[in-house]
C-alpha cells in the first residue's frame, strides 16, 4: 500500500497492520442488499462470465442529489490534504438485485425504481415524500427502503405496491434540510432485514433524538424501539448480537440487537464505509484515507491502515487506496499484529511505571530506585526492539501491491476483483493484481453489484451500467 505524505515512520508501520477474517458465507446467488449481505462484504461466490460487455446503461433524468457534498479541501492546522469525504452513502444510486430486476432509490425525485435486468427498462416506480438516499433491501419478494420523509416503506418487489409503511419518530415536523423539504427524523441508515426482522434508525441530530427500531418485516409491527441520541447516517450492519450504525463523519455506534441499547461508540477517524468480517469491524475512510479495525468482541480499536475500502476472501484481504490495490496474507499478519498490540499495551503500562519510578527517584536518592529505573528502561527498550521486529515481519505479509487508478469501489465475484475508477471500471486478478478487463462508464464508479451473470456499476452521474457476457 502507498504511504501518504507526511506520515511518520510509526504511522507507516501502522499502515501495514491489519486484522482480517473470513467473510460470512453467502448462500444466495443474488445481491439483495447493499454490498451483498448484512456484513456489507461486497463478496459473492457467483463468478461472472469471462468476457464482459455493456448490455445497457440506465441514466435517470437527474443525477443524485447528495445530502453532504464533501469536506473542505485541506485541514489547515494539521496541514493535511486532500481530506476524504466521510459521508458518501448517497453519491450514486446504489442498486440491489434479484435474478430479474434491479432496485434503487433516488435522492433527486424521491422515487424507488425497479428496472429490468434484461433491458434496463423501468418496470415500476414508487413515490416517497422525500429523497431516498440509500439502497433498498430485498427479502422474500418484498422491498424495504427508508426515506428522508422519516418513513420506512415495504413494497411488493414485483409490482411496487405499498404493503406497509412506518414512521420512526412520529409527529415530528418537516423542514428545509440539505436543500429539500424533509423530515427532522429521516431514515438514513437503510433498512437491514435479517430473518423476519427489519432494523433501521431514524433521526439525524443527536440533540433532537432518534429511534433504533426493529419491526416485524412482514407487517411493520414494532418488535422494539429504543430512543437514541446518536446522529446516525450510513448503512447498518449486523452481527449475531450487534447492530453497527455508522455516524457520518464520526465513528460507528454499536447497539444490542436484542433491544437497541447502545453498547459503545467506536474510536477512530470516522466515515460511513464499514464492513464486518466475523470478529472485526472495518470502517473508514477517516480523514485522509484510513480504515480502522475494531474487535467485535471487545469493541476496541485494534489497528489502522491506509485505504478507502476493502474486501476479504478466505485468508486474503484486498485493500483499495487512492493509488494502489494490494493483497495481504491476513492470517499471518493478524497473528503478528496481535502480538504487537500486546507489546504496545505492555509498553504503555511500563511507561506509566517508569514515570512513577523516576518521580520517586527524583524525590529521594536511593540506589534501589535507580536500579529499578535502569531495569525499567531496559525492559522498554526490549519491547521497543521486539515491536520493530514484528513491524518488519508484518511488512513481508503483503502478497502483492499494484498501482491503481481505481480508488472508489471494490467488490469480488468468484475469482475476480472489480474496482471502480473515474470513467471506467476494471477487473483484477486477485492472484497477481493484474488488470484483466476495463470498460468505460459515465462518471466515477462509486458502487457495484453482481447477480445473474451481470455486473451493475453505479456512478456519481446517476448512470447505472449493466455489463454481462459478450
Amino acid at each position, binding site marked *: 500500500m502507498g504511504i501518504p*505524505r*507526511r506520515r511518520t515512520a510509526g504511522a507507516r508501520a501502522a499502515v501495514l497492520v491489519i486484522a482480517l477474517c473470513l467473510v460470512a458465507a453467502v448462500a444466495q446467488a443474488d445481491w439483495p442488499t447493499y454490498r451483498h449481505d448484512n456484513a456489507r462484504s461486497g463478496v459473492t461466490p457467483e463468478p461472472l462470465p469471462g468476457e464482459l460487455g455493456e448490455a445497457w446503461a440506465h441514466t435517470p*433524468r*437527474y*443525477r*443524485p*442529489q*447528495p445530502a*453532504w*457534498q*464533501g*469536506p*473542505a*479541501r*485541506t*485541514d*489547515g*492546522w*494539521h*496541514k493535511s490534504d486532500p*481530506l476524504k469525504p*466521510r*459521508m458518501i452513502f448517497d453519491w450514486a444510486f446504489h442498486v440491489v438485485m434479484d435474478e430479474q430486476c434491479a432496485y434503487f432509490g*433516488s435522492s*433527486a*425525485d*424521491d*422515487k424507488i425504481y425497479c428496472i429490468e435486468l434484461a433491458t434496463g427498462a423501468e418496470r415500476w416506480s414508487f*413515490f416517497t*415524500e*422525500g*429523497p431516498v438516499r440509500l439502497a433498498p433491501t430485498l427479502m422474500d419478494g418484498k422491498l424495504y427502503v427508508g426515506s428522508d*420523509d422519516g418513513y420506512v416503506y415495504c413494497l411488493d418487489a414485483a409490482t411496487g405496491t405499498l404493503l406497509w409503511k412506518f414512521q420512526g419518530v412520529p409527529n415530528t*415536523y*418537516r*423542514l*428545509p*434540510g*440539505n*436543500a*429539500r*423539504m424533509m423530515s*427532522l427524523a429521516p431514515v438514513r441508515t437503510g433498512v437491514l432485514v435479517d430473518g423476519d426482522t427489519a432494523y433501521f434508525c431514524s433521526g*439525524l*441530530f*443527536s*440533540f*433532537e433524538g432518534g429511534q433504533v427500531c426493529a419491526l416485524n418485516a412482514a407487517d411493520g409491527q414494532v418488535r422494539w424501539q429504543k430512543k437514541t*441520541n446518536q*446522529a446516525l*447516517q450510513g448503512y447498518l450492519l449486523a452481527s449475531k448480537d450487534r447492530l453497527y450504525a455508522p455516524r*457520518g*463523519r*464520526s*465513528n460507528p455506534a454499536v447497539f444490542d440487537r436484542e433491544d437497541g441499547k447502545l453498547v459503545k461508540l467506536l474510536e*477512530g*477517524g*470516522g466515515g460511513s464505509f464499514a464492513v464486518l468480517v466475523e470478529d472485526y469491524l472495518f470502517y473508514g475512510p*477517516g*480523514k485522509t484515507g484510513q480504515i480502522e479495525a475494531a474487535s467485535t468482541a471487545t469493541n476496541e480499536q485494534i489497528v489502522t491502515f491506509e485505504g478507502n475500502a476493502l474486501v476479504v476472501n478466505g485468508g486474503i484481504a484486498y485493500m483499495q487506496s487512492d493509488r494502489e490495490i494490494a493483497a495481504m496474507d491476513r492470517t499471518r499478519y493478524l497473528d503478528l499484529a496481535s502480538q504487537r498490540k500486546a507489546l504496545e499495551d505492555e509498553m504503555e503500562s511500563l511507561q506509566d511505571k517508569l514515570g512513577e519510578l523516576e518521580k520517586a527517584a527524583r524525590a529521594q536518592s536511593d540506589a534501589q530506585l535507580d536500579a529499578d529505573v535502569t531495569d525499567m528502561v531496559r525492559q522498554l527498550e526490549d519491547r521497543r526492539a521486539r515491536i520493530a521486529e514484528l513491524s518488519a515481519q508484518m511488512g513481508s505479509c503483503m502478497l502483492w501491491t499494484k498501482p491503481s487508478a481505481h480508488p472508489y469501489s471494490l467488490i469480488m465475484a468468484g475469482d475476480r476483483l472489480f474496482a471502480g475508477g473515474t470513467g471506467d471500471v476494471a477487473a483484477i486478478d486477485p492472484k497477481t493484481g493484474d488488470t484483466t478487463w476495463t470498460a468505460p462508464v459515465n462518471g466515477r464508479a462509486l458502487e457495484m453489484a453482481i447477480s445473474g451473470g451481470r455486473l451493475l456499476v453505479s456512478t456519481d452521474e446517476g448512470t447505472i451500467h449493466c455489463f454481462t457476457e459478450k
Partner: protein
Amino acid sequence: MPVRHCLVPLLLFSLGVCPAWAADGPVAHWRFDSGHTVEQTVADLAGHAPATITGPVKFGGTAASESLLINKADNLVSLPYDLAQPALPQEAITVEAWVCVEQTVEFCNILGAMQDNGGYQKGFMLGFRQSNFCFGLSSAKADDGDGLITWVRDRESLQWGRWYHVAGTYDGARLCLYVDGRLVDESDKQSGPINYPAAASYLIGALADDDSKFYWRGWIREAAVYDRGLSADEIRARYDAARDQFPTRLHVAVGPWVERLGRDRMRVSWRTEYPSPTRLVFGDDITALETKESPGLATDHQIEIGGIEPKQMYFYRLAFQDVEGALHWTRLHEYDSTYGFWDLDIQPGPFPYASAEEQARYGAIADRLIKEAGVDKGYALIIGNGEGRLAYELAVRSRLKVVALDDDAERIRRVRKALDEAGLYGVRVTIHEGRLAELPYGYYFANLVTSESMLEDGRPPCTKEEMFRVLHPNGGLLMLGYRNAADPAEAEHFGKRRERWMNTPEAPEMADTAEGETGWMSCRRPALPGSAEWTHQYANPANTTCSGDALPGKDMRPLWFGGPGPRPMTDRGTRAPAPLYADGRMYVQGDCRLFGLDAYNGTILWELDFPDLRRANVPRGSSNMAAGGPTLYAVVREKCLLIDGRTGGITATCDVPEPAAVSRHDWGYVAVQDGLLYGTAVKRGGLFIGADGEWYDTKGDESEKTVSEVLFAMNKNTGESVWTYQGGAVIDSTLTIGGGRVYFVESRNPALAALDSGRFGDEIMEDRFLVALDAEDGSLLWEQPWAQAPAVYVHYLMYSDEKLVSVSSSDEWNVFCLNAVDGSQRWERKYHWNRDNHGGTIQHPAIVAGKIYAEPCLLALDSGEVAKDDILGRGGCGTVSAAGHAILFRDGTHTIWDLNTDRREKWADLRPGCWLGIIPAGGLVLAPESSAGCWCSGTPMQTSIAFALPEAREP
C-alpha cells in the same frame, strides 16, 4: 552514470561557466530555467552543488523571466546537506532569491537548511512566515544566550503574484533582511560561526525539518548563496540589475470575480479604471494557461467559459501587455469546480392542461404571485394542491422550490406523475399527503403561501394562524386567490365566510381585493416582534457583541440546515469575519467567497467567488463586511463593494478617499450607520489575510495590530466623502461608533512613520491616545492619553448607554469604563484569564442589559462590580455572541446559555469555528458552517444550520 549526470558538466561548459567562481562571487548559484536544467537537475553556476528537483519540472513566465513552478507538495528542490561543501558557508552567509509567491502558507522556506523544533533550532532559512518575508539564523555565539534562531522579518506583507528579490545576509555579527534591495529588518543578536544541525534537509521551495513540513506555490527564477555578508549596496545593485526582467503586478479596479452559471459554465468578471485590453488566461495547468478571449477595450469585462470539468482545480489570472511590450499580471487565482458539481440543469417539460384557457389562467396567477412575493428563490407553499397547475407554473416561472400539501391520495398520485413527467418532481416540486388543517412543517420557511384549491372552491384550506406560522418574516407573502362567484347571493355567502376567516382575532390583518373574476386576500409578514439584526462583526458599530434579539433562548429547534457546507469555507482557525444578518438575509464569508442566504429557509440566494476577498485575525484588525438594509458592504482590497443582498449584484463601488491612495492603501475597517459609510485606509500589507491554518492565538507577530493612516466617512449611497481624519496610527480593532461619536485608540509614536507599516506590535503601545470624534462631521470632541491599557494580545472598545468600555489584555485583562461624553473614567478592573490558549487572551466581551460578559468575569456596566468570576467555561476556541437573553458560544459544540433560566443547552454534532461564527438575529440562532478543515470525528456533521423557537415567545 545516469545520462543526466553526464550532461551537467557539459551544460556548465557550454554556458561558459567557470566552476572556480570569482573570489567574492557566490558559492552556489542556480538559475531555474529550461536552459540550465537537464531532466531533474539544475546546474550550479558556481560549480559546486547541482540541485535536484523532485517531482514535476515545469517552467513558466516570459522568456526573460522563465522560472520554475513550485507547486506545493508536488515538487521541491533539494541540495546535498554536506557541511564540508561550499554551499553551506560556516562563518558568514548571504542567501538571495528572485521569487514570485502565488500562495503563502503559515511558514515556509525559499532556501535554507534548518531544524526549528521547539528548543532545538539550528541552521539558517530565507523564507516567509505567513505573508512576511523573513530570514533566520542560529550562530555559535548568540548574544541573547538562548541558542535559538533569531528571525528578522519584513513588516509589510508580500503580495501574491508579485516578483521579489529577497536576500538575507549574515556577516558574523549582524543579521539583515532585504526586500527589493531595501533593508527591512536587522538584528545583532547572533554572532560567530553559523550553528548548523547535525542533520537537516537543504531545500529550495519547501520546508521540512524533523517536526514540520510546509509547501507553497509560486515561481523561483534564481537563487544564490555567498560565503560572506553582502553589503547593502551590493544587494541593491543586484536587485537593480534584474528587476526589469519580471512582469509587474496588474491592478484592476474591481475583481476579478466568478459566478457559476451552471454545472459546466462560469463567468469571470472584472472592471478596469480605464478602457483596456486586459485578457483572461485560464486553464487547469498553471504553466499552460490559455487566453480564453480578449474582450477588447472596455472597463467592464465579462467572459463566459464553458466546458468546465467537474471536480477540477482551475487557475486563472488577468494579464495586460503595454505598448512597450512589458507584461503586467494579477496573481494566480484558483477556481475549484467541485463546488457546484451536483447542480442540476432543469429543463421543464409540458403539463397536461385541460385547456389553453386553463393554462393561461394559471400562468397569469403564478406571474402575479411571484411578482407580489418579490422573490425568485426560496420556498413556495401551496396548501390544497388541487391538480398541481399552480405548482407547475410557479416552478417553471421562478426558481422557487414548491412544496404542496394535499389530502386526496388519488389526486396526489395523478399530479405527482404529471409533474414527474414534466421533469419537476422532487427537484423543484414536492407534494405531501396530509390534513390541510395541520401543516406538517416547521416555522417561517415559506416565502410565499398560497392555495390552488381555494382558487377553485373559494374555501381557505386551513386557519390563517396556521398559514401565518409557516410564513417567512421580513416580507413573506400570504396570498390566496379565489374565484368570484357570478351569482350575487353566492358571492355574498362566500364573502361572509372569508370575512369570518380573515377576522379571527389571533391572526394578522389581511387585505381583500377583488379583481374581475379573481379576488385576492393577502398579507405580508413583518419582522418577528422582538427580533433584531446583526449587521457588523460584533453585532453593531458599538461592538456590544449583542444583537438585543429578544427571542433566542432555551428550547430552540432546527429551522433549516444544509449548505454551504465545509468545502467552500475558510479554514476554521483563522479567526475570520463573523456572518451578518439584515433584512431577513444572512451573509456568510467563505474562502474568498460570499454567500447570501435566506435566513429563514437556508436557500442560497447568490454566491460570488472573489479571490481577493479575505480577512483573517479579526481580533487584531477588523471585519471586511457590514450590512445595512438591503445592502451588503464588502471590502475587497482598496474598495468597498455595495452588493444587493437580494441578488448579489454589485450596485456601486467606493474607493478609499484621499489622502489615502488606492495604489498604497487597502480599505480596512468598515461600518455603516445613519446614512454614512465609515472606513479606514491601511497601508498595503497591513491586513491579515492568512488562511493556511494560522491560528492567531498567541502573542508576537500574530498579535500585532492592524493600524490605519486615514479614518473616513462617506455617503453610504453615493460614496461622496463627508469627512476624513488623519492623526496617528488608528488601531482598527478599537474603532467603535455610538452616541453620535466615533471612538478609537491611536498611537502617535513618531517612530512609526519611519517603520512604514500597516501593522505594529509594541511600537503602538507608545504615545497612545483615546479619541472621540463627532460621527457626523469628524470634528474632535475629546481626546486623552491612553497609556493605562496594556494590549499585547488584543485591544477592543465597546459602547453602551453612553459608556465607553476599553478591554485589553497583556499579562491580564484590563477593563476601563469611561463616560462616553467626555472620556472621564468611571471605573477600572483587572483580572486574570482562565487560560492563555484557545482564545483565552483574546475574547471579545459582550454587553447585555447593563452587564459585561467578559470571560471569566461578569461585570456591572455601571459600577464595574464583579458579579461572578467564573462565567462561561468555554470548551475550545471561539468567542461569545449575545442576544437579549442568551449567550452563544462554543463549549465543544454549539452552545446556548439562556440567561433567564441560567440553563445551557448544547447542540451536539456541530462544531463552531475558532471565532465568532454563531449569531442570534432575526429571532433565530444562525450558525453557518465554520468548522471547515477540522478533523473532529466527534462531530458527525458539518453543516450550516439555523434554530428557532417552536413558538415565538413574546419579547
